């Protein structure tokens, strides 16, 4: 297959090419190794997890997971809080971002690029600078340890990314198709449903996944603004910062469980990941 696919490079692909391919494999394995190690250790017993040299082929067990889910404080409330905060804020982001992106691409307002760069500039201001006023506001409004405050903050955190991404997806809708729809007398709803939606649906899905990942990962605000009730999964993980005797298997189980939704969402959105992270500027 490779011989057919790369006829131009073929003459250069000698032994050097094979070494470079091997190098790529070695680097790839080195990068994925800590993740694999985390997964493997999570299925080992605590005694085996703490062995030096590492007990790679030790028998597998679910001890770590059992300890994580039912050993101490239950991880379910934080996991559910994270899920609520991420899903609800992602939904709100899409509700706000899609119309905004429409007004910045298909039927653009005047000075649309200024507006676009305003959104981007908010992403560059350090979040830590807005932390204190939000905390004081929450304290006075009785919103501390309330998941809705996090939802509002996560929405503002992801809205610029979503507006940029959605704008770049919406500008892929061919102008000819929009004109044709207008000629055929299609109203706004019909144009949205049958012309725009089919083209941008994959884009909406990718945007949603990226917003979900960023909300799920967030630590600083969740740590400052929540306590016992609205605690999220990353905050729950911080209880592992100081070591507690034999706890490595449990820690790896916890890290893997909390990362699992992101790993799934990320691999699903793999192809759109760059576009999202570069705010739509790289295709």
């Amino acid at each position: 297959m490779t011989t057919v696919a790369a006829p131009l490079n073929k003459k250069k692909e000698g032994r050097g090419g094979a070494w470079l391919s091997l190098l790529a494999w070695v680097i790839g394995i080195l990068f994925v190794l800590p993740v694999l190690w985390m997964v493997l250790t999570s299925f080992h017993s605590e005694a085996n997890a703490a062995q030096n040299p590492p007990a790679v082929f030790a028998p597998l067990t679910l001890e770590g997971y059992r300890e994580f889910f039912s050993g101490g404080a239950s991880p379910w409330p934080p996991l559910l809080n994270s899920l609520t905060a991420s899903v609800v804020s992602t939904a709100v982001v899409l509700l706000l971002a899609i119309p905004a992106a429409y007004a910045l691409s298909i039927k653009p307002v005047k000075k649309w690029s200024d507006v676009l760069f305003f959104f981007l500039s908010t992403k560059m201001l350090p979040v830590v600078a807005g932390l204190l006023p939000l905390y004081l506001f929450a304290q006075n409004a009785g919103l501390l340890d309330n998941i809705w405050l996090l939802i509002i903050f996560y929405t503002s955190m992801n809205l610029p990314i979503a507006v940029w991404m959605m704008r770049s997806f919406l500008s892929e809708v061919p102008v000819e198709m929009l004109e044709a729809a207008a000629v055929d007398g299609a109203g706004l709803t019909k144009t949205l449903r049958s012309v725009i939606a089919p083209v941008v649906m994959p884009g909406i899905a990718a945007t949603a996944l990226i917003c979900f990942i960023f909300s799920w990962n967030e630590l600083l605000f969740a740590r400052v603004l929540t306590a016992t009730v609205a605690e999220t999964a990353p905050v729950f993980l911080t209880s592992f910062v100081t070591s507690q005797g034999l706890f490595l298997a449990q820690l790896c189980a916890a890290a893997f469980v909390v990362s699992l939704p992101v790993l799934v969402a990320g691999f699903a959105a793999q192809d759109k990941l760059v576009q999202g992270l570069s705010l739509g500027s790289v295709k």
Partner: protein
Amino acid sequence: MTSVAEKPATGTAEAPPPGVARRASAWARRAPLLPALVFMIIVTQLPFVATLVISFMDWNAYYPDEVGFAGFDNFARVFTDVNMRDAVWTTILLTAGVVLISLLLGLGIALLLDRKFRGRGAVRTMMIAPFLVVPVAAALIWKHALYNPEYGLFNGALTWIWGLFGSDNPPQPDWISNMPLWAVIFALVWQWTPFMMLILLAGLQGRPLDVIEAARIDGANNWQIFRSMTLPHLRQYLELGALLGSIYIVQNFDAVFTITSGGLGTANLPYTIYQIFYQAHDYGRASAAAVIVVIGTIIIATFALRTVSSLFKEEGRR
């Protein structure tokens, strides 16, 4: 073609007074944008105004009776504070270190992955994995499962390798205590190299291949092609990666908080401000520090915006 003939007809069909119609249609265009715009202004701009106001106030939550106007005192205290100056320096080292190393590694790996070889997709997927581990979880794994001097994988691997050569006293360094800042940098490089690699790979795959083939036929070797064709083409992608990386890593809190808890000279600005605010409850000083960080960020962000907008114009030209 028919659309040209029909367009004026639909435009004049309703015929209200022209000025009113134009204003109404301008508002109809703006309407979908407004909710998002208003939301962003309220949630992101108002807090910064508040921060600015508080930065000029004497306000410590431990002394609620002594709230008042402080002038530039907080700024003076921030500028003379040794911890704060260290934090600025740490932030620069941390950000520059992570961005430069991950950019170089990302470039090398992107070049390797730009070739066709067996399992290219698998290697790409493996490379992305570090970026998809929740940052706190990743930092915890590095701290406990890799760096730990007694049972971490690094020292475990040293024991194993030394064991192969029949030695039973392998070196067992305490990685985090010996090189705390590098420990944080390596963990972050591991997470951010995939990001750089993805951006640069996208850039490489957008290269005009026919021109490169022509150069090769004209006798240019790989290094010449890389130096005078690939690198200039990649320049804007390198800039974009560096600037976006800087924006995210300047703000890093998770890794510093988890791996060293800001100890051993690794407290960066976000962590230091978090401490002044969350532990010392000195709201005035925390706000002054935040204002200074914002000003610093605006300087970097101006360059960043320029880069993004140049990419943006290029896309417009297409």
